[in-house]
């Protein structure tokens, strides 16, 4: 029993933290967000570090590590709110790896691992997927949904309509289209993608909490740092409770994906439900601690808040995942749709 990373995993984490601290500063996030583009140089360096194929088997050009390592990277990418197609591409890789045929894996995974032909994933709702990240730049889109056939849609065969969202750090579109069926276990891919998304939310929460604590130490009102007032300090303590809760559930989901797949459906939905709520609540609470300055465009906090809120709505919202946990707890089939 060891609920901590091993040395290799710790080194992946510290490399990611250092790399993103120097290459994905808030100025860069702001530049990309306001310009509506990604920074090609950062994405290229991430690929060179082997991140895009971190969980993909060596035979397809990946590093053949696990979901735990993917979770580590995702937490750091959330912490830095890095604008990049990393998550969408990883989610597509997970879908192909678990739901794809051998032929589909051979055809698509090398492009995912090298970043040369990226993919993305969307959840279908009434015939189209309303919120698909990075679809416009992707080579293929995996569409999945309850009652629908999980399928691979080539970019050229897809109807892709750009959508502006609150989250300027990424690009989104509505996608529909027919494509080739995936014969494997779509749920196994989606659950792993949920663990990765929960990790990003945990990173956003951690960063927003740290910013709130720093601000509460510095900012003085009534001749005292505002962090000395319990109205503020207890709010910060609650941020820690929720951030650590999201982290525990997320690490467990990552571990279950790699070592105890029978526990993964519950673990992934618990992580996604809890981290979606925590991501929103912690970033919103941090804004409250910051007061007026936190509500300005000029302050960096809103990048975290909007990324977290948007992540919460990808791959099934908190309510859908909680309903799924209730099903796993023995209350019978879901009563709400996966949106």
């Amino acid at each position: 029993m060891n609920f901590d990373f091993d040395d290799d995993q710790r080194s992946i984490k510290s490399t990611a933290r250092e790399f993103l601290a120097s290459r994905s500063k808030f100025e860069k996030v702001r530049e990309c967000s306001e310009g509506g583009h990604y920074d090609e140089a950062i994405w290229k360096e991430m690929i060179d570090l082997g991140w895009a194929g971190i969980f993909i088997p060596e035979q397809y050009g990946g590093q053949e590590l696990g979901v735990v390592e993917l979770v580590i990277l995702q937490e750091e990418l959330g912490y830095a709110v890095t604008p990049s197609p990393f998550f969408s591409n990883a989610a597509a890789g997970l879908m192909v790896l678990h739901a794809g045929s051998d032929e589909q894996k051979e055809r698509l995974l090398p492009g995912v691992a090298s970043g040369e032909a990226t993919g993305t994933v969307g959840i279908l709702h009434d015939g189209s997927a309303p919120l698909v990240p990075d679809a416009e730049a992707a080579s293929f889109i995996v569409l999945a949904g309850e009652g629908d056939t999980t399928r691979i849609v080539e970019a050229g065969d897809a109807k892709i309509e750009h959508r502006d969202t609150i989250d300027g750090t990424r690009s989104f579109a509505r996608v529909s289209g027919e494509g080739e069926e995936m014969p494997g276990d779509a749920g196994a891919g989606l659950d792993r993608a949920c663990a990765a998304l929960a990790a990003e939310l945990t990173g956003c929460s951690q960063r927003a909490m740290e910013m709130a604590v720093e601000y509460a130490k510095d900012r003085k009102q009534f001749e005292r740092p505002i962090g000395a007032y319990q109205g503020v300090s207890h709010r910060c303590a609650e941020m820690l409770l929720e951030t650590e809760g999201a982290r525990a559930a997320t690490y467990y989901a990552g571990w279950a994906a790699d070592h105890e797949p029978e526990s993964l459906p519950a673990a992934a939905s618990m992580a996604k439900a809890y981290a979606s709520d925590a991501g929103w609540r912690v970033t919103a609470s941090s804004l409250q601690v910051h007061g007026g300055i936190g509500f300005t465009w000029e302050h960096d906090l809103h990048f975290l808040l909007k990324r977290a809120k948007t992540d919460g709505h990808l791959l099934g919202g908190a309510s859908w995942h909680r309903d799924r946990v209730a099903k796993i707890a023995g209350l019978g089939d879901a009563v709400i749709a996966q949106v």
Partner: protein
Amino acid sequence: MDLTLSPDEQAFRDEVRAWISDNHPGKEPEGLSEDDQWKFRVDWQRQLHEGGWAGVSWPKEYGGRGATLIESALFNEELAASRAPGPANVLALAMGGPTLIGHGSEEQKERFLPPILTAEEIWCQGFSEPESGSDLASLKTKAVKDGDDWVVTGQKVWTTYAHHAKWCMLVARTDSEVAKHRGLTYFLMDMEQEEVQVRPLRQITGEAEFNELFIEEARIPDENVIGGVGNGWMVAITTLMNERSGLAFGLQVRLKILLGQVIDLVKEQGLEKDPLVRQRIGQLYTESEIMRLNAWRGLTGIMKTGQPGPEGSLGKWHWSDINQALTEFTMDLRGPDAPATDSEFTFEFLRARANSIEGGTTEILKNIVAERVLGLPKLR
């Protein structure tokens, strides 16, 4: 990262399970008098002791099992999962004994530890006072040196098991000239003297689990000072830390048991398809699982650094939130039957109100997290 048990740990758990299943005393018989109820728990502790399961985490030289942190956690999980009653001398086993092992002299350890394990001498805890709750260090119970004795006068409250206890872990003021944290001393006070009067304190549940203690010139020999005169605050903190960290594993299992009962209740009421009910079950299932995971994370932190990580400070707070939410949920599910006292759920619902007060209020725990984990400035 490895969330599985090693073969040794698995073997330990199997051993615990086998022993409990061979020796389980069964559910406490109903309708017992208070004395017989107590005897049932004393007998159960003796049985645990004979099996070598009292003081599981205590070092072997003091009659314990010398179990590792993980083994102790597994033992507490299994004991709770079997729904066996708690041992009678739980305060001494979980708090008093470890405090004595950490701060007592060899003579004190030899004198006091063995009868804790056998339940021959029950301990109670005399910390809180009517005017000193969260601000424990402001306590007023006074001890004055008189020859080889200390003479103690004051009042204590929330003293669990005082009416059964031989010894009281008593914190009293021995110096009122110095800063409030420095003038305290930790004593073991003999409860079997006229000068100590115990009055049961009836709670909102109707039960009297706690007591008030009226102390009027009680005598404590100097050799019963633990950890030195003036060091009472530091020694008391050890007791409280043991209270907060050791209980997590039993508590999270009890949450899971209650959650299982709540899920059965949902089915009995035919509410499986109610979306709001499902949302609450999904949330409570997730939160209790997170509490379990954080208990194990905390243990890994202690093993690596000697101290619980940030998640360790959160466990008791999180548990009280979840237990209150679960017990409130049982009331909502039972509709017009809810206030009737013919169900254990109603009792548990009321009892849970104390969870966010006993062993450190949630507000104090938030202060600790804010100041010691996040490094925010102190208000005081």
